[in-house]
């Protein structure tokens, strides 16, 4: 890895890590997924034109990487049901820490809603950039955000979180 990739990693690795986590990459996959993001970034660096900030550029890569990891997870679930352990603990979920609570609720909403919500609400990317990154209109992005909030509140209400 060259110095540019190293600087990219130093400046944004924590954000990429958090972003992947709330996009639904499981805790034990985060290191591998994070590594994958920066490998792709390293490869694509020559294409980076600077029309987005390095951070949102990395988020774009992370969106694709996270999607692939989620797919992999779904395949595993169809097979050996990786989450059967989690499911058995699910009734105790309200006693788990709040980060997991939010991740659990995010699992309950659609992928496109989740992406808008995590980009805008957690990573605080402006909506215009969110829309550009997700290749949808700003109006659509806002609509997804509204639906995401509604879905999350509904899911959290199930867990006794006030709405």
């Amino acid at each position: 890895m060259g110095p540019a990739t190293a600087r990219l990693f130093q400046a944004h690795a924590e954000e990429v890590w958090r972003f992947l986590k709330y996009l639904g990459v499981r805790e034990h996959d985060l290191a591998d997924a994070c590594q994958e993001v920066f490998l792709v970034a390293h490869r694509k660096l020559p294409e980076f034109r600077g029309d987005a900030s390095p951070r949102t550029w990395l988020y774009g890569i992370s969106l694709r990487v996270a999607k692939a990891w989620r797919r992999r997870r779904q395949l595993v679930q169809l097979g050996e049901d990786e989450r059967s352990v989690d499911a058995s603990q699910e009734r105790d979920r309200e006693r788990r820490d709040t980060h997991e609570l939010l991740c659990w609720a995010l699992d309950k909403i659609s992928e496109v809603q989740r992406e808008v919500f995590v980009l805008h609400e957690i990573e605080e990317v402006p909506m215009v950039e969110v829309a550009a990154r997700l290749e949808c209109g700003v109006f659509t992005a806002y609509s997804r955000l509204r639906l995401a909030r509604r879905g999350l509140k509904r899911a959290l209400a199930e867990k006794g979180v006030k709405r």
Partner: protein
Amino acid sequence: MTHPDLDQLVALARRDRPAAGSLAAVARGLRVPFVAAPVAAIVMPSPALAALAAKVGMSRLALFGWGAGATVAVSGAVLAVALSEPAAPAPVVVPPAATTGLVSANPAPLPPAVEPPGAPETAVVGPSPRAPKEGPVTWDEPKLIERARKALGSEPRRALALAQEHQRRFPGGALSVERDVIALEALARSGQTAEAKRRARAFEAKYPKSIHLPRVRALLARLGEG
């Protein structure tokens, strides 16, 4: 037991950071140097808070960044460097052989360690726009903000008093922005419109990217900008 509501969960998620050492392992896999960012001042929970945390099952104490503090002690050289927070931190190069179980034992083949020509050297050196907020946070903080928020509808003066209490007790708290929004809404609702407007404008200037900005602007519009 009660949980923080969605907005509070989001505010806490924004402060979520990987456990110390996790990124160092990724850095080793990528063969890049990495210095963990300095950990914000951590207030270790009081016995009462620790008891509360245990009661609500915060097994990893990850809620308010305590997790980061708790792992500092075991994180070894990388964080030891980070904690000293030098003006120009010397990169800690970890030998690639020291890979831990966190990253695949057989990572994907690494691309050649040659920087492509025309790489945007300067584009990636800027400081992260999302530096973690500093300051001690405790389990009491979201509770206090929640009480203030609840009071807003019926008892704006009480909401204001609670916001002031938050300011006093948690001056650099994780929910300071939320507190400011509650305070200026409380001012508006209790008839102190001039002060509410002044604070709303100050908020606009201070937090130009805040997700609360639409709410603050709506308030300004309601009060009449003049």
